[in-house]
């Protein structure tokens, strides 16, 4: 195999939690750096922690690597070190080739200036030469699709247009290594597709790409290899499917230790717990796509309540809502409730695609909006399945070929 274009050898980076202290350490580090005596990187000072700890990996030309991990796992710090913005505290990074970062879209934009002027300044900041700008200018404008707004000040642009303009400049970079941080999720669908096509092109040209995104779909679309980070350390490096699984497990671990901070309501009736059962009434937290489940919600009514409305909301872990189930929408009347009991919601085919889901539970008054009690992350469910399908849901279907 060819030489790696990125070699990260046992790299660590520490950060400071307190701003005041961080600034003061800045002064101390400055002094140490200037006298060339910056050898005490090993020890953590007060309020410091390892944001990136002993990380090693290599990336070859043409590879596309995803970096996965929850907030504060060290993805961005790692990316900033690769981009040469900050120095590692320990270890060494070797880079072969021209690195460019798709991190700050529209860097250096001045709202008073026109789109045309801003393209030029932004492109210069990203490292385009005068000739390259001249050569690429029309293509950039074309790609952004802002056309007639080109000579208007950028402050009169919609936020979507500004971002599109920023991305369009960046899209014409010609790097050997491209670092991408959370920028592919901007703009409308058509624009996002354009961006993904562009990334594909770069990859085919042998550009090594490192991609950070919270959107696991994007990662699984683009990267065949991914690295999962947890608390600054690599916990998995390999194929993206497994990396995402490992990430979800690590996420669930943190959620299990997560107390219900956002609990509230009038409290006459309360949710005791929410369980997920299979049709044989056995508790579980993992199924395969399309299997049947039962959601069982235990309640305790401290006084007699009339016709409360039960609501279960299903989220993608750490993400958006997938669906919600409400007793009033289903025209179910629960009648008078008092004391302990439970209600069951049977779902014959749980057709959501492989992912980790969390359930929120709410009990409303019969008016439908005041709530008695609500519990976020009342339960969770992992769906597994081998099919490499992207999207949210599996629709049961049949094929027919007519000739």
């Amino acid at each position: 195999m060819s030489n790696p274009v990125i070699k990260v050898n046992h790299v660590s980076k520490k950060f400071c939690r307190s701003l005041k202290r961080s600034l003061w350490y800045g002064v101390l580090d400055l002094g140490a750096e200037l006298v060339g005596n910056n050898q005490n990187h090993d020890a953590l000072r007060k309020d410091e922690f390892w944001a990136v700890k002993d990380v090693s990996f290599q990336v070859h030309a043409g590879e596309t690597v995803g970096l996965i991990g929850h907030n504060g796992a060290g993805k961005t710090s790692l990316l900033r070190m690769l981009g040469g913005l900050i120095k590692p505290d320990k270890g060494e990074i070797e880079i072969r080739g021209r690195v460019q970062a798709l991190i700050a879209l529209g860097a250096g934009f001045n709202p008073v200036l026109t789109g045309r002027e801003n393209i030029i300044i932004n492109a210069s900041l990203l490292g385009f030469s005068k000739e390259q700008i001249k050569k690429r200018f029309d293509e950039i404008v074309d790609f952004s699709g802002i056309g007639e707004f080109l000579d208007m000040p950028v402050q009169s642009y919609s936020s979507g247009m500004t971002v599109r303009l920023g991305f369009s400049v960046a899209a014409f970079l010609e790097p050997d290594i491209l670092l991408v941080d959370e920028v592919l999720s901007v703009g409308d669908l058509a624009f996002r597709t354009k961006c993904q096509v562009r990334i594909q092109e770069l990859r085919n040209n042998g550009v090594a790409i490192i991609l950070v995104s919270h959107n696991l779909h994007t990662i699984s679309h683009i990267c065949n290899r991914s690295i999962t980070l947890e608390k600054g350390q690599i916990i998995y490096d390999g194929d993206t499917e497994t990396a995402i699984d490992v990430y979800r497990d690590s996420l669930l671990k943190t959620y299990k230790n997560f107390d219900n901070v956002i609990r509230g309501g009038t409290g006459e009736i309360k949710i005791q717990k929410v369980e997920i059962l299979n049709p044989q009434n056995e508790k579980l937290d993992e199924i395969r796509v399309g299997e049947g489940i039962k959601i069982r919600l235990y309640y305790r009514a401290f006084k007699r309540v009339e016709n409360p409305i039960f609501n279960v909301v299903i989220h993608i872990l750490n993400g958006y809502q997938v669906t919600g189930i409400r007793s009033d929408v289903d025209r179910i009347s629960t009648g008078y409730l008092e004391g302990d009991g439970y209600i069951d919601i049977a779902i014959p085919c749980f057709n959501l695609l492989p992912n980790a889901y969390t359930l929120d539970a709410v009990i409303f008054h019969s008016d439908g909006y005041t709530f008695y009690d609500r519990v976020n992350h009342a339960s969770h469910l992992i769906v597994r399945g081998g099919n490499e399908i992207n999207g949210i849901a599996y629709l049961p279907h049949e094929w027919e070929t007519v000739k």
Partner: protein
Amino acid sequence: MNRELENDLIIYKAESSIRKPARLISELLKNLFQSKDLAWRIFVRDISAQYRQSLLGIFWAFFPPIVTSLIFILLQSRNIISISETSIPYPVYVLIGTTLWQIFTDSLNAPLRATIAAKPFLVKIYFPHEALILSAFYLVVFNTLIRATIIIVVFVYFGIQPTWAILMAPFAILVLILIGMCLGLFLTPIGMLYSDISTSLPIFTQLLFFATPVVYNIPDRFPFSILNVINPVSPILTGIRDLMTVGYINNLNNFLIVAFVFLIASFIALIIYRVSLPIIIEKIGS
């Protein structure tokens, strides 16, 4: 392609780059050269944005030195303050003095101001940071050219016969800019971390104003004469004014010594700036 990559190996590690001074200096010079286009773009951007949002435009470049001058001309002519005899008409002395002083304070503030203004993208993408200093220099020169018209008007109005030596004045003014930017550059790393620097800078500049022969000659007798020795701006400012009006620099040795010292110091300041920015970027976050 691969061979090209071989030559293009970059290594990031913890060790301070100060330990390899030869490489540090060659990279500094390379970056300075490479960043000239970018510096120009940043300069053009700043100028266009500034003037597009201003009704009176370059009027504000003339305004401060003229107001300061008028105040002192008034105070002097009414004998409210007594100022020792100057070799040239007092208004000429003051107008040239305050214009030069304005150029100096511009230069002093420029590096920190440019770096703070760049903060939003400085912490996000890598580009040759020397471009910021270079663009700040362009901006100072631009403002200097505008302000030079004050001096021309003064010469015409007071009917002063310029000597050939005035052709040397631009170089002398460059030395003044060098001193200002050099001092400003030394303050920039700390000034990026703590706002105390940008807060206190105007106060200390004001103090320095009265310790420099801008609107009056510093008395020759002790202890005031010390000011002329320890204040590096004095010989330069006096020198330029002499050059323009009398035709020679009275104290050429002092002028040359200061110019030489600050040429070296500017280089050191640039190196410090270069070495310290990654640490600053790390501390001021994203």
